[in-house]
Each structure stands twice: as structure tokens, then as C-alpha cells.
């Protein structure tokens, strides 16, 4: 492959004004021409809704696809904590430069400086836009916007709407989108699941979708295609993602030639409600703000099954406070997760299967009173009580790390365009500015920066620079993509109750296979990774994929919709992606951010980064029937020099 294919198109010259200079240099399109240009947006989360609304406001003809019944259901709705912006309203010394630095350092020097700087620059305008839409952010008594401290940052730059910031930001963006639908500038297609990307002469021109109610395959064509379809934490089966969140759109684009960057960079959130029963379908996040008042501990004696309240103080191990006297319970997400896992594996874990640790509010309650703690964390404590059946004010909460966010995703350049020309990737779906580890409250910021501000400018530049030959659904490329999707569906379906492949085909729920994949992935490619285990997991995965190819079938009951078929199609794509994650984790012989390789740690058990060999973005090329090829984009730092983290 030629080097030019991985040209990130980074701006030259000083970082501080780079985005403004880039934007001013981008070509424009006249309003009358914009009306003739079509943009297709897949996904209606923060990135998709904001991009679609803004592109329509600018005059493009926009079509929007979502697998949900309504754009408001996208999983951005579940984000709790808040959104960062460098506004320095708190007058605590924050600035664009500080947010930029924190993002680069938080990502453990595996993100591009130019992208991180642009994100910090845009952050303030996002807050302005959301407030103007009527997003009800938390306020001080005087009427100014409130900010809180989040995720170990030294300044208060996180804007929030109680514990439902994602919901409120999403509704702002969705309402902006629906306003454009009413004005007939956006056509909204709900209950559509993308199955294939259409490329014509190497350029992205549309997608093939399956209508989830009618079961029909539909062809959507456009002059530019935007994927804003979220992350892939559900490769682990149990995660904090919505149960239908999936990687199919980005995986199908990858199979059509879009490089996939840093797939092994996945974030595990330390404070989630642990899994219990074998039929459990998802894990629920508890905002890590609880670590401000909760003390994390385990019994000193392995296998101690006593009621936590009857374990005396001397027989408790407050392991984070012991190991990290400076940061204590507030160490970064990956460190907290790793230490909890190690002790659980050593037999100290509590709860079902010994897979959780205590987060104890008792001391905070003794200090501030139950009322104060309840008002501080009200909805969280209620949610915990509802799910676990225990009262967190009298019994220590049980928590465990859970897959939460994926920093990896489709490779994009500074213009958010993938290696397939005309295919733009936004939000969690791209590999973006979070490097090897995302800061708390930065996901919402990135999704909205991409959608409201960056993509509308760079998509315009793409459309201005290209001739767009007319393509219709009868074009050979469309017919080929449609046939590929139809073939995959046909291969999965068997008549209800019978099975030509194996006895009882279609009689085992897809979920059972997905659960197996999840267990394999969380053990080999979760909080901690090790070369031998990754290699063994690749073999196990190959066997599982083989078994799925032979056994995985779905009964056709004669109804046009078929939720099991949807699950099977998604699972096939997760199987492919899982293999790529294992390969990427194996190839990255260093520990950085959320990627911890046991072979690469200091004697104290801390991550050891290898800037000499791995200061780059790994971008994988799909090759049908052959092993994928790893390309790399070197990372250079001019404003901030790489340093090692230390939280002890």
C-alpha cells in the first residue's frame, strides 16, 4: 500500500490557529448548488443528529438512517456525567491549552496533537449552541452555568444536567434534527439497519439497509456518506452499551476498504453494577463520582464470605488507598479496574462468583449524614437499589469494572474522512482524539464537535472538490452490495422448526454464541492482556467462528421482521472485529492507556509505554481470505513532550 493512503492531512504551522486556518482555506459551495447535493447520515446519536441537522441547515439534502424507532433512543442518551469545555467560568485557571494538554496526556500520547487542540478550541462553542437550544444545564443560584470537577482533572470544566447530561444534549440535537425533518430538508428513515457500504470507483456513494419491520433490503445513495454509529463495546457481550448497539456499520465499511485504527483501545469503567445471574443482559454504569465519597475495599482473607458489615476494620484491605497513597480511590479508571481484577482473581472478590469489590459509603455517611449523601447521589443510589435489591446506605455497594467505551474505530484524517474517499466517520465510531484512554466527560464533547462543527465544514470541502457522477440503484456496485447482503441473510435463515445444516439448526439462541464470544474477549482482551493468552484466544476464536459458520442459523417464521436474524448478522460482524482486536492487542508490545500488556510493566506493576517503537496509530487493512495488514501513522509531539504517568 502506498504511504499517501494514510495521509492524515494535518495542518502545518502553529497548532493554536491551525483549525481556523484550515477552515478558512476550505472551499465553499453556493446555496443553489448545495440543494442538489445529497448527504446520507447513518446513526442519530450526538454525532449523527448534530451533523444531519447542521448539514440540512446549511442547505444540503440530507437523509438520515437509524435502527431505532426514533432518533431519541440512540445510546448517547445514557451518558451520565457531563461534557467538558474550556471556558474557565470557574476562574480556576482553565484554558484551551490546558484542556488540550489533559486530552493528550489522558490519551497517553497516542492521539494526534492537532486533533486534540481543535477539540479543545471548539469545546466552548458547543456549550453556547446547546444552551441556545434550551438544554437545561445545571445552574448556580446567580443564574450562571455550573461546572464540576470530573475524572481527576485539576480544574472544574464539566458542564452537566444532573446525571442525565447525555440525554439532554441528545434531545437538543434530535430536536434540531426534527425541526429540519418538518421543514422537509431531512428525510428520516427509522428502523433501518445498515448491512453494506456502496462504493463506486472506490468512492463511498451509499449504503444497503434492511428495514427491520418489512425485512426488505433498500438502497440509499448520496454524494457523501457519514457513519456515526457508535462504539463496539458489545463485542464483550456484557457492557454498559445498549443491548442492540453494534459494530456492523463500521465493520462492513472496514471490509469495503476503510482502515480500522487501534481496535484494541477499549475503555473499561471501574464502577459498574457487577454481573450476577447467567441470564443477565447488560451491565449498568454507576457514575464514578461515587469514588469521591466511597472507599473501595476487599476482605483481607481470600474467600471471606461474611456479611461486609460484620468484617472488622482490621480485616479489610482498602487496596487503592494502600497502593496509591496520593490519589487513593481517585486513581484513573484503568488503574482502579486493574487492581480490582487482580485481587478478585486472587480470591478476595465478593458477591456472586467473587467478581466484585465493595464501594463503601459508610464513612461519608458518618461524616456528612445520610441525607447529604442521598442528595448528592440520589438517582444513582436509587438505581443501584433497584437493580441489586440492596440499600447502599446500609450495605456497601458491590461494583466491578465493565466495558464502556471504545477509543478505537475507523481511521479518519483531520477532515474526519476515512481511507474510503467520501466516507466520513464521526463520534465514537471513529478512532478520534482520545488516544489510548478517554478522559471522563470528553465523549460528548467529541461527538458534538464532530457533528456540529467539524464535519459540516470538511464535508462541504469534499463535495466542492469532486464531480459526482449520477448513480442509481441499478448500478453494478449497488447490485453487487445488495446481493452480498441478501446472500448473508439467505445463508442464515432456515425454515422454522427444520434445519438442513445440522440437527436443530436455528434452535439455539444467537445470544448463547454472543455470550461465549464475550467471555473469551473479556478474559483475553479486557482489563489486562498477555501475549500467550492473546494467541490462545485467537485459536479459540477461530474455533468459535467456525462453529458459528456451521451451526448458527435463524428460524424463519414467515413474519417479515426477525430480531434473531438481526442478532446473528451483528454477531458475525463482532466475530470479525474480535479477531482484529486480538491481533492489534498482540501487535502492540507496550502498555499504554487502557491497553495493558502484562509483559510491559514496571516492577511496581505500572504500565510501561514504548515511545521508541509504538508512538504511532495502528491502522489495519482488511484482506478477504487473508491476514489483515497493519499500517502505522507516526505520532509526533511539538507542544507537549511525552511523559510517564505516576499516581502513587
Amino acid at each position, binding site marked *: 500500500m502506498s504511504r499517501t493512503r494514510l495521509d492524515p492531512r494535518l495542518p502545518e504551522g502553529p497548532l493554536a490557529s491551525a483549525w481556523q486556518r484550515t477552515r478558512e482555506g476550505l472551499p465553499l459551495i453556493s446555496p443553489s448548488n448545495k440543494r442538489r447535493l445529497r448527504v446520507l447520515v447513518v446513526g442519530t446519536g450526538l454525532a449523527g443528529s448534530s451533523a444531519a441537522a447542521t448539514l440540512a441547515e446549511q442547505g444540503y439534502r440530507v437523509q438520515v438512517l437509524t435502527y431505532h424507532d*426514533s432518533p431519541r*433512543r440512540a445510546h448517547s442518551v445514557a451518558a451520565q456525567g457531563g461534557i467538558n469545555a474550556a471556558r474557565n467560568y470557574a476562574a480556576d485557571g482553565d484554558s484551551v491549552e490546558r484542556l488540550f494538554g489533559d486530552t493528550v496526556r489522558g490519551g497517553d500520547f497516542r492521539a494526534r496533537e492537532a486533533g486534540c487542540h481543535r477539540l479543545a478550541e471548539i469545546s466552548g*462553542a458547543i456549550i*453556547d449552541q446547546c*444552551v441556545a437550544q434550551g438544554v*437545561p444545564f445545571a445552574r448556580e443560584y446567580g443564574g450562571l452555568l455550573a461546572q464540576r470537577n470530573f475524572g481527576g482533572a485539576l480544574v472544574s470544566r464539566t458542564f452537566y444536567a444532573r446525571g442525565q447530561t447525555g440525554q439532554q444534549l441528545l434531545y437538543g440535537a434530535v430536536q434540531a434534527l426534527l425541526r429540519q425533518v418538518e421543514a422537509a430538508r431531512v428525510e428520516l428513515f427509522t428502523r433501518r439497519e445498515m448491512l453494506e457500504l456502496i462504493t463506486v470507483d472506490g468512492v463511498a456513494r451509499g449504503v444497503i439497509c434492511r428495514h427491520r419491520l418489512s425485512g426488505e433490503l433498500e438502497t440509499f445513495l448520496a454524494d457523501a456518506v457519514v457513519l456515526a454509529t457508535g462504539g463496539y463495546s458489545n463485542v464483550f457481550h456484557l457492557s454498559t452499551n445498549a443491548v442492540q448497539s453494534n459494530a456492523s456499520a463500521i465493520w462492513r465499511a472496514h471490509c469495503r476498504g476503510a482502515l480500522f485504527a487501534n481496535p484494541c483501545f477499549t475503555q473499561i469503567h471501574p464502577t459498574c453494577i457487577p454481573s450476577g445471574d447467567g441470564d443477565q443482559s*447488560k451491565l449498568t454504569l454507576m457514575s464514578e463520582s461515587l469514588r469521591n465519597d466511597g472507599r473501595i475495599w476487599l476482605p483481607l482473607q481470600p474467600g471471606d464470605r461474611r456479611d461486609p458489615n460484620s468484617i472488622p476494620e482490621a480485616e479489610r484491605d482498602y487496596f487503592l488507598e494502600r497502593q496509591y497513597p496520593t490519589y487513593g480511590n481517585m486513581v484513573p479508571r484503568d488503574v482502579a479496574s486493574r487492581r480490582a481484577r487482580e485481587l478478585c482473581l486472587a480470591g478476595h472478590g465478593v458477591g456472586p462468583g467473587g467478581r466484585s469489590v465493595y464501594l463503601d459509603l459508610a464513612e461519608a455517611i458518618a461524616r456528612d449524614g445520610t441525607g447529604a449523601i442521598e442528595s448528592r447521589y440520589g438517582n444513582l443510589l436509587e438505581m443501584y437499589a433497584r437493580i441489586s435489591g440492596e440499600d447502599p446506605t446500609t450495605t456497601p455497594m458491590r461494583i466491578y469494572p465493565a466495558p464502556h467505551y471504545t477509543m478505537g474505530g475507523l481511521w479518519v484524517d483531520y477532515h474526519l474522512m476515512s481511507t474510503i474517499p467520501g466516507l466520513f466517520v464521526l463520534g465514537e465510531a471513529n478512532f478520534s482524539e482520545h488516544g489510548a484512554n478517554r478522559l471522563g466527560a470528553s465523549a460528548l464533547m467529541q461527538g458534538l464537535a464532530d457533528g456540529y*462543527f467539524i464535519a459540516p465544514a470538511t464535508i462541504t470541502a469534499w463535495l466542492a472538490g469532486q464531480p459526482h457522477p449520477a448513480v442509481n440503484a441499478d448500478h453494478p456496485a449497488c447490485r453487487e452490495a445488495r446481493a452480498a447482503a441478501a446472500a448473508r441473510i439467505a445463508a442464515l435463515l432456515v425454515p422454522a422448526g427444520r434445519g438442513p445444516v445440522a440437527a436443530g439448526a436455528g434452535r*439455539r439462541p444467537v445470544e448463547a454464541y454472543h455470550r461465549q464470544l464475550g467471555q473469551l474477549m473479556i478474559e483475553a482482551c479486557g482489563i489486562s492482556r498477555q501475549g500467550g493468552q492473546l494467541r490462545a484466544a485467537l485459536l479459540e476464536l477461530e474455533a468459535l467462528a467456525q462453529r458459528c459458520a456451521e451451526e448458527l442459523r435463524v428460524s424463519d417464521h414467515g*413474519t417479515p421482521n426477525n430480531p434473531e436474524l438481526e442478532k446473528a448478522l451483528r454477531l458475525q460482524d463482532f466475530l470479525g472485529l474480535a479477531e482484529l482486536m486480538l491481533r492489534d492487542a498482540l501487535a502492540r508490545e507496550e502498555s499504554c492507556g487502557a491497553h495493558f500488556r502484562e509483559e510491559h510493566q514496571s516492577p511496581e506493576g505500572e504500565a510501561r509505554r514504548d515511545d521508541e517503537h509504538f508512538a504511532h496509530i495502528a491502522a489495519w487493512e482488511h484482506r478477504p481470505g487473508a491476514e489483515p495488514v497493519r499500517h502505522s501513522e507516526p505520532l509526533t509531539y511539538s507542544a507537549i513532550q511525552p511523559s510517564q504517568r505516576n499516581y502513587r
Partner: protein
Amino acid sequence: MSDPATTICLNLRIWRQATADAAGAFASYRLEQVSTDLSLLEALDRLNGQLIAAGERPVGFEHDCREGICGACGFLVNGQAHGPQAATTVCQLYLRQFADGDTLVLEPFRARAFPLLQDLSVDRSAFDRLLMAGGYCSVNTGSAPEANAILIGRDQATSAFDTATCIGCGACVASCPNASASLFVAAKLAHLGQLPQGQPERARRALAMQQRMAAEGFGSCSNHLECEAVCPKQISADWISWMRRESWR
């Protein structure tokens, strides 16, 4: 190692209807030894596993986030939208709410504006069309003034937030004898109408959304207040009275 979990047996009577046009009927199922640590939707997952193993069509129901915020799930449990627990969506309804041997009758939300799709699934896209009529502030991206330029008192912001938390699940409509969307519409009018940013379009928005509500086939409010009782976000029906006054602005 594992703590013994409590298990119960449940009898389920579920509305089964293959397509919008097909005839529907209740069917009976039994779940044996199901952990009370599971949510009702996870119990349905398990039932569907049994149906798939038996070569039968699984029960269709809407769901996604399973943490009570996306608003996708919702059906009647023993006649109550989202079941017996207050301020809870059905995905957050755990089996410890029920006793061994209980019979649960599950049926879809029924309202003219929510056509039935299959089993427990209905089409709630009418809600999006209500928002399209005016549930927004007409500001284009990039033209917003500085965020702190307009002060908003803390109580006012909190009250606006409380009405903005509606998740669009449709329980209010399903529980109303008139299948009215008054609480849904009032919540959106109150969210935007309490904020300075929502003032320029306030009167027009109130009129347009209420007219759209009638056009979509939702009924009117006659103060039964069932909507408030079932709302998983506990939005107050007082806002419906507030909406009435908006019509006279």
C-alpha cells in the same frame, strides 16, 4: 463460591399477534426457577430462548438501553404501564417485585395513535411528529450567543430540567382512557416555555403541538391523572393545567 440466588416460578400470559393485520390472542407460558435478580425483560429473553429451542417464534418487544433512559421499552404488566413499581420502566422492573407462582399478564400499549406492530411492540413515531410541530428552539448551528450571556435562576433551570427528562416511552398515552398525549406535549412545552431561549416561539409552539396532537389521533385530557401515576420520570400532571393557560397567551 456463588451466593445462592432466590428463584421463583412465573406464569406469563402474553399477547401474541404476528403482524399488524393478523388476529391476536393471549398465550400462556411458564418460567421455572428464574432468578429474582433478573429484570422482567431478561426473563422474557429467557422465555424467548425456550421458544427458539422449541422452534416457535420468539415474543416481540421493544428494548435497548435496559437502564431506564432510552424509552424504547414499555408494555402493560397486569394492566399497569411498566408494571407495579413507581418511577420505573419495565427494563428496570426486577423479578423480586413478584412472588413465586405469580401470574403476569403482558399486553401492548393500546392507543389509536400507537398502531400495534407485533406482540408487545407498538409504533410510537407519532411522538416524533408532535415534536416536529414545534418542540425545539429555532437556532441554527454556529449562531448561538455566549452561553452565560443570559442568566437563568437555579430553580427555574431545575424546573425546566424536570420536565425535559421525559423519555418518550408512551406510558402516559397507554394509561389514559382518552389515549391523550397531553403529558408528553405539556412536558415539552414546559421545558422550553420556562427557559428564556424558548420565549420567542412559545405561543406558536403551544398551539402547533396541541393541534398536531389532535391530528395524530390522540385524545384530550379529562383529568384522570393516570399519566402522572405511571410516568417513569414522575413528570407532574400539573403541567397539563399549565399547558391550558399557554393556549390563552
